[in-house]
């Protein structure tokens, strides 16, 4: 018995020693933070596609985006980088690019003509000084407007609000019907989402871009922006007392039970409705914005490829990059993740009703803008988050909020 085990162990050791030389050509260690049920099912689709293309996928899943990114950065600095690592479609990895620590993926980008294929906000963060440094996987839209059909019916709202005034009117009706008009999770990141939604829907695309992308102090100090801040604060009169600190999924549960009327939250909320066996268009509704021309706020996930001179690792990185952008992988991943593919040339009919609405909105390039993180550094983004959550939760005057917002984006 013992001997058998020893022989087995020796064989395993031999195999382990032999393995790198056999499989090194296409071995990819990938760090990501997709650990929940739906997410890990989605990432398995990429792993399968990569294996199908002849590669060996080593999965390093780390719970929590912050932790995963910290591990990636530490390993890059420590000289033992993974083959590929997940980041959000944002400026999170700009410093890594500027330090020259990432391999570019220009070859894949040229072959797939990303310059014309990809939405501008995504190119904005992955193309630095003429080179592409990340492969986009999917698009999330963080400011979907969800509503409960039952609540709307009870309040006598017959059609979807198409502008800010109609939204406020609908919220008033919900309040009169004894329903919590706005199911809001009072955490600072959720307040930033709510604010982004109002800035884009009320302020419009031009103001949105000049405030967040250009950080134009004149635009921030304008009356138009003040109106946005006032509308944001007005939303606070529609939340219930238990809102502070609430998790987003608990807010979604309020819509599912009909206790709440409207929630503004990312497309990941869809998973909650699905888990409760609710169907879009029947028990709940989804709108990517108010009216047919509302900006579509793009965020998502990308993979970066840390710099390495090992030719085998570079080969693996190139193979993985081409697998990720392949239409079949994009579709299979987003179907399970609840996002939409970055490319518009895929068969949208396989996606759910809300995702199809999103795909349709994405077709209009004029509607595409990025979320705050696409234009701001993590530091600046955090600074406006602090201002917004303080303004939302305290009696801070609108003038003070406007002043603080301007100061947060000054440098």
């Amino acid at each position, binding site marked *: 018995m013992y001997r058998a085990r020893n022989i087995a162990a020796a064989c395993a050791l031999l195999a382990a020693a032999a393995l790198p030389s056999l499989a090194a050509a296409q071995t990819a260690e990938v760090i990501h933070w997709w650990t929940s049920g739906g997410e890990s099912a989605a990432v398995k689709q990429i792993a399968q596609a990569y294996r199908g293309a002849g590669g060996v996928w080593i999965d390093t899943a780390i719970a929590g985006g*912050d932790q995963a*990114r*910290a591990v990636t*950065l530490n390993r890059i*600095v420590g000289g033992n980088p993974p083959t590929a690592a997940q980041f959000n479609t944002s400026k*999170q990895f700009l*410093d*890594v690019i500027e*330090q020259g620590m990432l391999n570019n993926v220009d070859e894949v980008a040229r072959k797939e003509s990303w310059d014309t294929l990809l939405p501008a906000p995504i190119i904005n963060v992955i193309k630095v000084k003429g080179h592409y440094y990340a492969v986009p996987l999917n698009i999330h839209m963080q400011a979907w407007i969800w509503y409960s059909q039952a609540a709307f019916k009870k309040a006598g709202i017959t059609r979807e609000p198409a502008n800010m005034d109609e939204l406020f009117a609908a919220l008033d009706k919900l309040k009169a019907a004894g329903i919590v008009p706005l199911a809001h999770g*009072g*955490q*600072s990141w959720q307040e930033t989402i709510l604010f982004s939604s109002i800035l884009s829907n009320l302020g419009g695309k031009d103001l949105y871009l000049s405030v967040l992308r250009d950080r134009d102090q004149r635009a921030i100090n304008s009356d138009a922006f003040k109106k946005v801040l006032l509308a944001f604060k007005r939303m606070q009169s529609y939340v219930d*007392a*238990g*809102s*502070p*600190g609430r998790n987003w999924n608990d807010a979604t549960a309020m819509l599912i039970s009909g206790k709440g009327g409207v929630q503004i939250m990312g497309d990941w909320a869809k998973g909650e409705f699905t888990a409760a066996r609710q169907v879009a268009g029947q028990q709940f509704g989804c709108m990517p914005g108010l009216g047919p021309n509302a900006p579509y706020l793009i965020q998502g996930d990308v993979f970066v490829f840390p710099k390495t001179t090992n030719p085998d690792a570079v080969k693996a990185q190139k193979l993985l990059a081409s697998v990720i952008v392949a239409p079949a992988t994009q579709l299979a991943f987003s179907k399970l993740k609840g996002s939409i593919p970055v490319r518009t040339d895929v068969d949208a009919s396989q996606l759910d009703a809300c995702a199809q609405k999103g795909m349709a909105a994405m077709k209009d390039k004029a509607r595409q803008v990025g979320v705050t993180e696409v234009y701001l*550094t*993590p*530091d600046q*983004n*955090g600074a406006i988050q*602090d201002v917004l*959550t*303080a303004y*939302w*939760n*305290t009696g801070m005057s609108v003038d003070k909020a406007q002043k*603080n917002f301007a100061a947060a984006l000054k440098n």
Partner: protein
Amino acid sequence: MLARRFRTLTPFAALLPMALTVIVAYIGTALWTLRVSLTSSRTFASDNFVGLAQYERLFDNERWMLSLHNLAIYGLLFVVACIVIGFLLAVFIDQNVTGEGVLRTVFLYPYAMSFVATGLVWQWMLTPGNGIEQAVRLLGFPNFQFDWIIDQDMAIYTVVIATVWQASGLVMAMLLAGLRGIDPEIWKAARLDGIPAWRVYSSIVLPMLGPTLATVFLLLSTAVIKLYDAVVAMTQGGPGTASEVPAKFIMDHLFLRSNIGLASAGAIVLLVPVLALLAPYAYARSRKGQA
């Protein structure tokens, strides 16, 4: 000759690993942090020195100032409440009550829990509509309201409640050990003179517990400075920024906001009160050693 030299060197050799740890891991990293705080470092440490710009930005930051303010309120209440409750519990147990072993365990038990678990449990208990509020309402007070955890002005006090609940048991255990170390003859003498018990405690026992109290104070103070996990578990610094604390500010800027320059400046500022607390203590100890 050789043997004697060996004997004199042995203690130093034994101390070397700890000395190296202190010099490299504590002092070395503190100096490194100081250096980073003087640069414009973002995700990575850089060599671009900007003088005190990070400190200027830090003290211009409303959230940081609020964090310091919260820390002052929290620190004062937490230390005082822990010592008072811990001392009363210790005195109570020192009366030779029956079931002392059980009670001691019960009071010390919360300390065995992590701050995160403590924070989560108290968050559930304090959430309006659940926990305490609901329990009291069911007891027949339908209008009872206890919503501190979502109240701008009261949120920081809920953190005090939860952490005092956790830490006062430890204070009790340490003070109880101190009380047990007091010579029974003193009690006999006091009883002979007809001095009431409270007077003995306040005028004789408490002064004798001085060194123990100093240790307790130091332990609690460091717990105040590093307060982070309980806040994250209970309020995440909210509602809004109402219960933010400096350690959370530093962690956020270190990892979420990729600004290690500003985070390091915050860490250095936090080091100052620690040194201010530690210096007189170390000085008193060294004076005592000489005398």
